């Protein structure tokens, strides 16, 4: 991708956002779309977040228990370190990378299909601000639902670790739970929630941008959807780096 085309895309994205971030034409219709999106983008993602968090949580605890094996450190350290990793990186960033695939491709292909079948043109001709009508409910719903998913993922991750401790006994569940509670900083949870909401905004708006600007046929909708996942993954990783540097440094 050349620099000029990248800059052009950024410009187009900004212009699209300007049309999206406006008060909706009809509050009643917005509410209707919003509640549909909460279900489609948010509630429908709970199961995948649950499964992944349970397993990865268990693996994180297993790895840490295996690697931190020093007589100088109390065994409860396993719980504390797992907690930090799960809250700071796993539940916010890794889960968002997965949602960039699931939710991002869903948004891009839905809007892309509407574009190539002229449903978006139909909205424009009626005098509806199509960008606002289609994209705003998705962005708002996903950003607001993101904390729910992250908190859910954190609990499931920690619970996965707990189940592992119950099975292997290394460390014991009591030690693990003590470790989780030991020197717990609430600020990290806020940090994680804010970060994930930022990612939620990126995922939904970037995917919508790719779908909204799709042109051609069914094949191009598939391409828009793939491109959106790739772009979102890179953006999430870069933002994560910048955000962490900003908050920790």
């Amino acid at each position, binding site marked *: 991708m050349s620099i000029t085309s990248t800059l052009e895309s950024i410009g187009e994205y900004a212009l699209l956002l300007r049309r999206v971030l406006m008060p909706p034409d*009809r509050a*009643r219709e917005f509410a209707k779309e919003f509640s549909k999106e909460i279900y489609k983008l948010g509630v429908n993602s709970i199961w995948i977040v649950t499964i992944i968090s349970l397993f990865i949580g268990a693996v994180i605890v297993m790895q840490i228990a295996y690697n931190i094996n020093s007589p100088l450190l109390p065994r409860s350290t396993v719980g504390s370190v797992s907690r930090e990793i799960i809250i700071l990186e796993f539940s916010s960033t890794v889960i968002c990378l997965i949602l960039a695939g699931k939710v991002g491709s869903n948004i891009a292909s839905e809007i892309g299909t509407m574009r190539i*079948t002229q*449903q978006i043109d*139909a909205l*424009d*001709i*009626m*005098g*509806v601000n199509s960008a606002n009508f289609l994209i705003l409910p998705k962005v708002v719903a996903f950003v607001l639902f993101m904390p729910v998913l992250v908190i859910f993922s954190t609990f499931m991750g920690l619970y996965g670790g707990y189940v592992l401790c119950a099975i292997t006994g290394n460390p014991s569940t009591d030690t693990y739970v003590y470790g989780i509670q030991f020197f717990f900083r609430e600020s990290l949870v806020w940090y994680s929630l804010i970060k994930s909401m930022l990612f939620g905004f990126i995922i939904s708006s970037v995917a919508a941008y790719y779908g909204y600007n799709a042109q051609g046929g069914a094949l191009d909708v598939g391409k828009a959807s793939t491109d959106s996942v790739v772009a979102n993954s890179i953006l999430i990783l870069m933002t994560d780096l910048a955000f962490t540097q900003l908050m920790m440094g």
Partner: protein
Amino acid sequence: MIEVQNLIKEFEGRVVLNNISTKFKEGAVNMIIGKSGSGKSVFLKCLVGLLRPEGGKILYDGKDFLKMKHKEAKRLHRNMGMLFQNAALFDSKTVLENVMFPLDMFSRKNYRERKKRAEFCLERVDLLDAANLYPSEISGGMMKRAAIARAIALNPKYLFCDEPNSGLDPKTSQLIDELIQGITKDLEITTIVVSHDMNSVMNIGDHIIFINEGVKEWEGTKNHIMDSDNKELNEFVFASDLFKKIKEVEETGPETRHPEA
């Protein structure tokens, strides 16, 4: 009233519409005809504001659409209905919800009145039975009819149709043609139809504009279309065998064609 002056549209330097000027007849079916790729759809998209022309004026009741402020353009949009080539129904909504959608967005009426209006429009296109089906569950002709119902829900002043009978059998296309004509007369709207089907041109065209390679070659009524001496138009009209024969019959009289009768 819609009037177009010196309209120019280019795509990356390639001129697709070249200096088109015309006036559409009010309260009548205006037909834009021409070969595939001649720029008909692009012309229609310019008229409704989906494409921005590089030059010229599009006057709605004397006001230039291209220079209108956002609010004004939006108000004008509410007076436009459009039927797309592929119907473009919202596939996440039922037929009834599709027809109700413009009302939900713009009408101040309550739910019951909006529903009644939508049902009235569906009744008009004879599709009330399919009200609760999704677009994927109905046929192409039904989709077109549902799209017509949606286009007229807000009582528009202008109706635009891009190839309303492409992909339909002759009987269904005639039905759609008659529907468009009936609605135009009943609601006194100005209708602009893009088509390359000579049958519908002769059936319902009150005013006909022929475009060839982005240039308006000819304009007139259907009574004159057969005896125009424009070479391009003749080529287009008499590309169909049927019309060639009609012309022959008209010129030589039916009796000479059937001497045995």
